[in-house]
């Protein structure tokens, strides 16, 4: 069946359709919206796209997205250099920074171990993380990968390599979402929350 759209619009729909979270209907809506936009808005959008591509790179130290060789967190002297938080993705850095609870530095692994999908340690930035330990005087690595099988595999793998180096390996806790009701929690999360219980300090 031939496309009902003229080729330039069909090309636009195809490009948007490749983006994460955008289905065929959304791609059509965005494409139709774009062709109706004023010229100057289009120019600004096009510039923002190429500018982001030109100026964003990976930090040489932590592999987070950065504008320069060293990202703003790695070049901030006020951060605690002895504690490192290993995360899966740049978006996790943003999520943890929003908590305001962490004053150490990060290392973005750019994925997790997933042997069943063929992702091994060589495909991740694990080697690069181990190279940072001694020079930066890192004494603790918090493995902040997602609490699923791949995240646990990654955490156990990293902990095993850290052990002979005398660097402490810790894992982010799993538990109940704050503000929720106990009765709605699944049995695994609730079980973990019980296992990770803490003494009430008064």
């Amino acid at each position, binding site marked *: 069946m031939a496309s009902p759209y003229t080729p330039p619009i069909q090309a636009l729909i195809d490009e948007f359709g490749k983006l*994460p*979270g955008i289905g065929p209907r959304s791609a059509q809506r965005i494409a139709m919206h774009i062709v109706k936009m004023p010229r100057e808005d289009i120019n600004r959008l096009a510039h923002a796209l190429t500018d982001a591509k030109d100026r964003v790179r990976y930090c040489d130290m932590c592999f987070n997205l950065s504008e320069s060789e060293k990202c703003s967190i790695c070049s901030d002297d006020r951060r605690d250099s002895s504690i490192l938080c290993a995360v899966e993705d740049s978006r996790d850095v943003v999520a943890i920074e929003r908590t305001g609870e962490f004053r150490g530095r990060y290392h973005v692994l750019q994925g997790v*171990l997933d*042997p*069943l*999908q*063929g992702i*091994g*340690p*060589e495909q991740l930035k*694990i*080697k690069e993380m*181990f190279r940072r330990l001694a020079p930066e005087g890192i004494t603790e690595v918090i493995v902040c990968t997602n*609490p*699923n*099988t*791949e995240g*646990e*595999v990654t955490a*156990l*793998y990293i902990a*095993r*390599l850290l052990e002979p180096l005398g660097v402490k390996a810790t894992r982010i806790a799993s538990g109940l*979402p704050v503000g929720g009701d106990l009765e*709605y*929690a*699944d*049995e*695994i*999360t609730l*079980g973990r929350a019980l296992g990770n219980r803490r003494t009430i300090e008064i």
Partner: protein
Amino acid sequence: MSLYREKAVVLRSYKFGESDRIVVMLSENSGKIRAVAKGIRKTTSRIGARLETLSHVDVQLYRGRDLDTVRQVDLIDTHTALRINLKRLEQGLSMVEAVDKLTPDREPVPHVYTMLSRALRSLNDAASPLIVGAFYWKLLSSEGVAPALDDCVRCGSSTELCALNMQEGGILCRSCRSGTAVSDAALNILRQVSSGGLATALTLDESPAVREVNQLAMALMEAHLERKLRSVGLFDRHL
């Protein structure tokens, strides 16, 4: 859309869309199923943790044209001990990986389902250095490709059996030998595994013969699959 219910072991899952996952499961009666679990990656998802790899579940699904959709999940066993121990996690993943690579979609293999769910439960209850080797050997037997172990497959001799050759279809004696060398101790374990002595074999402690059987079974499994198994030895690999 028709609704159906199955007991299943989760083999693996992968991200799909913004917050979904495709979960690959081996079910009791419908073989290997691929199903979308909607919203499973959100922290508000109630089924989230239940559909992790290695979980044993009772699941309700909508039948779709190529992909089914998960409607409800009840946990049979999450196999906690497999998730917190490096060795057992590696062993569990090694077993589900082989099953995943061996079984085609939607072709009922109830005997494989039974073997896998039993092996995972047994490994969850107690450490078992031999479990992956024994499980692979049993899988190969059920595929009809496990090597014959009784007499030399060439000359029929029952003494001085010392080598295993896949192409020849089994064990070989000293004068006919080719393929991989096999020790007497390893041959005894293999015979035990293939002739009703599985339960005893699974309680064996780590030993050179156990390691030999594991390596042998893994090599045979990889040869049969014509692919590498990535979970085997995962945590022994260095950077």
